[in-house]
């Protein structure tokens, strides 16, 4: 195995081990989307009528509609949680140690993002299993076809988190920044309501939703779950992933916490 793959393997294994040690994080990651599915969706089912639009070929329940959005929510929260963990590691020094490896810095950061994405996908799998038990099922092929869309979306949101973490000088500032990112990103997307529904209320809001990278991620997941490809959504997700990865790798400064303390 090459040095690069040995490092990837070790970083993924370590992050997985850390995640399984944090049972609270595992439970909250599962409980959050389930609450939305069982409580929020039940309340909104009566209020929101959904017409037939691709990838759906018949009328669907609101719960069925929001499952891909909640999958996206898991990836979004984990992406941000991953960047919090990166800031924490930077403050605690373990990131400094990792970056003394002779491997390229971008590769080490990519490994961290990939590890975070892998953990998110495990949570998504568990969530989809619970959703299936709740009666919301997708074609079998969809459960396989969704994997590439999940990897791409997970990397995109992880890279966004990493790029944001580069702007944060201290751990204490992180929660505030996250609130300004997670909630607008989630609510101004197609996760909870289709774009045509949003257009009925406001054309401007609909346009904002349409350019939100999270909307593209959710739509690529939605179509993939029905074993279909939404080329536009997938393409935009890929473009955003590359852009955000480039921004994150370029902006990452392992000394940021150190410099902030000394300056």
């Amino acid at each position, binding site marked *: 195995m090459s040095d690069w793959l*040995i490092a990837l393997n070790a970083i993924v294994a370590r992050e997985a081990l850390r995640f399984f040690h944090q049972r609270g994080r595992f439970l909250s990651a599962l409980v959050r989307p389930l609450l939305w599915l069982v409580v929020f969706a039940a309340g909104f089912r009566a209020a929101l009528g959904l017409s037939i639009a691709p990838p759906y070929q018949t009328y669907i329940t609101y719960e069925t509609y929001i499952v891909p959005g909640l999958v996206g929510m898991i990836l979004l929260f984990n992406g941000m949680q991953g960047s919090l963990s990166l800031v924490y590691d930077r403050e605690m020094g373990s990131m400094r140690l990792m970056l*003394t490896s002779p*491997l*390229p810095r971008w590769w080490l950061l990519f490994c961290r993002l990939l590890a975070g994405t892998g953990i998110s996908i495990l949570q998504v799998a568990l969530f989809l299993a619970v959703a299936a038990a709740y009666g919301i099922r997708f074609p079998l092929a969809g459960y396989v076809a969704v994997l590439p869309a999940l990897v791409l979306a997970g990397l995109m949101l992880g890279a966004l988190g990493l790029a944001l973490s580069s702007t944060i000088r201290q751990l204490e500032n992180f929660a505030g920044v996250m609130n300004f990112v997670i909630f607008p990103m989630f609510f101004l997307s197609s996760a909870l309501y289709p774009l045509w529904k949003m257009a009925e209320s406001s054309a401007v809001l609909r346009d904002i939703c349409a350019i939100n990278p999270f909307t593209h991620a959710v739509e690529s997941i939605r179509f993939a779950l029905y074993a279909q490809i939404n080329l536009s959504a997938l393409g935009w997700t890929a473009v955003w992933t590359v852009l955000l990865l480039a921004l994150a790798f370029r902006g990452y400064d392992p*000394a940021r916490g150190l410099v902030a303390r000394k300056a």
Partner: protein
Amino acid sequence: MTGLVVDALGYAYGAKQALRDVSFRVAPGRFCALLGPNGAGKSTLFALMTRLFTTSQGRIAIMGHDIARSPRRALGQIGVVFQQPTLDLDLTVTRNLSYFAALQGISGRRAAGRIEAVLDRLGMRERAGERVRDLNGGHRRRTEIARSLLHDPAVLLLDEPTVGLDAASRAAITSHVHALAGDTGKTVLWATHLTDELRDTDQLVLLHRGQVLAEGESGMLRGNMKLDAWFLSRTAEEEAPCPTG
């Protein structure tokens, strides 16, 4: 080949100059103490040598490899122990070491063999299966030193590795690292502000307010004075207030 070369190095945090025209060399097999009070610029120098900060003024070369031009080759030659502990407390000693070995591209049997060897060398073999959280401060530090040796680096950089340890642990670790330099020919740079960790035959670089005040063999520099008295007098000279009135 010189193990470590620092040449006309400077660094500033914004308007605050942390290092100014710092130059020294350390030969293979030498134990060099970078002695300086808190705030002298020792940790900044370490951050530059490990490429956490980008070198903008001057040059650092590790075994002939310029850290700015050939970072991969240079980083492959150094083992680092940072001032701040960087072990994963919930993992065992062995798991911590195998993670770091993998970051250096070492895995499987080769990693297991190296881990066994370095733990033996540091007298930590019987602790291999213990969680780091359950180790005392001295053993944690030894684990970090063992980790820094896993890839058999030519240069060891240790940033105040005995901070917070009791006298016995400090003496044991200092003695281990002196032996490493002597027995294995490694170049050792040991940052400290504690003069009792140095021997007369050690190379000494006195750093104060980001500048090298003195460099040479410790015993020669101190002359007839005790090292701590010499250290205090040299740093006090620089801090003496300007006469007023």
